């Protein structure tokens, strides 16, 4: 599910493309955008406080016998609905393997992007060395 949250709308369209045919999805709840109040902790590890809100879109669908849902940052209700369909298909034991295979490609791309960012960040790490040691 974290993967679907990080994926783009076109990622999910591509994933569902590989899983066709899919029976039509019915909305259990119409896709909707709302707010979640993001809480931090005082000092990073203390009691909670409110940092500010974030937009969140959600969807809940029924595909055949299975229901699926999604909650994502942002206002893309279409993406949330696609993710809910992916979730519903994943609930189906007969399709789970195919869903995971289709998502693996997205996962590999997201991991590669994160690795590049981490490597670029690591290159800005300071290596201190002592210039002069004044002992005498």
């Amino acid at each position: 599910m974290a993967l679907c949250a990080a994926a783009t709308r076109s990622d999910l369209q591509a994933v569902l493309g590989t899983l066709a045919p899919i029976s039509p999805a019915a909305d259990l709840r119409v896709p909707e955008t709302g707010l979640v109040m993001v809480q931090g902790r005082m000092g990073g590890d203390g009691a909670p406080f409110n940092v500010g809100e974030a937009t969140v879109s959600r969807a809940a669908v029924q595909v055949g016998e299975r229901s699926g849902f999604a909650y994502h940052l942002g206002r893309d209700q279409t993406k949330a609905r696609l993710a809910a369909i992916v979730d519903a298909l994943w609930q189906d034991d007969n399709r789970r393997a195919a869903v995971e295979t289709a998502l693996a490609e997205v996962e590999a791309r997201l991991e590669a992007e994160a690795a590049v960012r981490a490597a670029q960040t690591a290159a800005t790490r300071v290596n201190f060395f002592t210039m002069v040691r004044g002992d005498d």
Partner: protein
Amino acid sequence: MTATLPSGAGFTDAVGQTQALFRVLMDAMARPGSIGRMPFDLAPPAPLTPELAAIALTMADQEASLWLDPGLSAVDAVARYLRFHTGAPLTDDPAQGAFALIGDPRHMPPLDAFSQGLEDYPDRSTTLVIAVEELAAATPDNARAFVLEGPGIAERAAFIASPLPDDFRAQLQRNRARFPRGVDCLFACAGRIAAIPRSSTIIGGV
């Protein structure tokens, strides 16, 4: 991750339909004793009635909690339906609910068991939503009618709602005496709605 999603659909046009129903509820509260029409039906799991479901989906949310009477809370599908469509927390304590859904008015708790609000924040009281079997306009001389006076009523308003507890009229009078604290009541049946807010004076004997 497996989620148990509910049976029973919510509104198809959540914004438009809840706004329309909000208007109906506001009018019912503003004109106590008048009979309003609820424009649509839902198909919630029994014994939750379509009227109670529509009002809950319109009014309850993450910050407006729901109390269900024992007949409703005994059915797991009802709780799941309401949680899913409203996101509202469900509470066991009638004094904690922003809204109370009452499916069996014969055995409902007394009005003073619900949150009465505070002198400084009278809005923090419970609004009772009561599913009755009969709801009809009446003339003020009808012995079965609730006859009301007060804000929003030209002279007198009257309507019949039943079944309700035997001493309900007396309870409403005590509720009125607590003003500005006290609860507000909505009565719903077969697509119709009427209200007795705490501002209404109940005329007639016990």
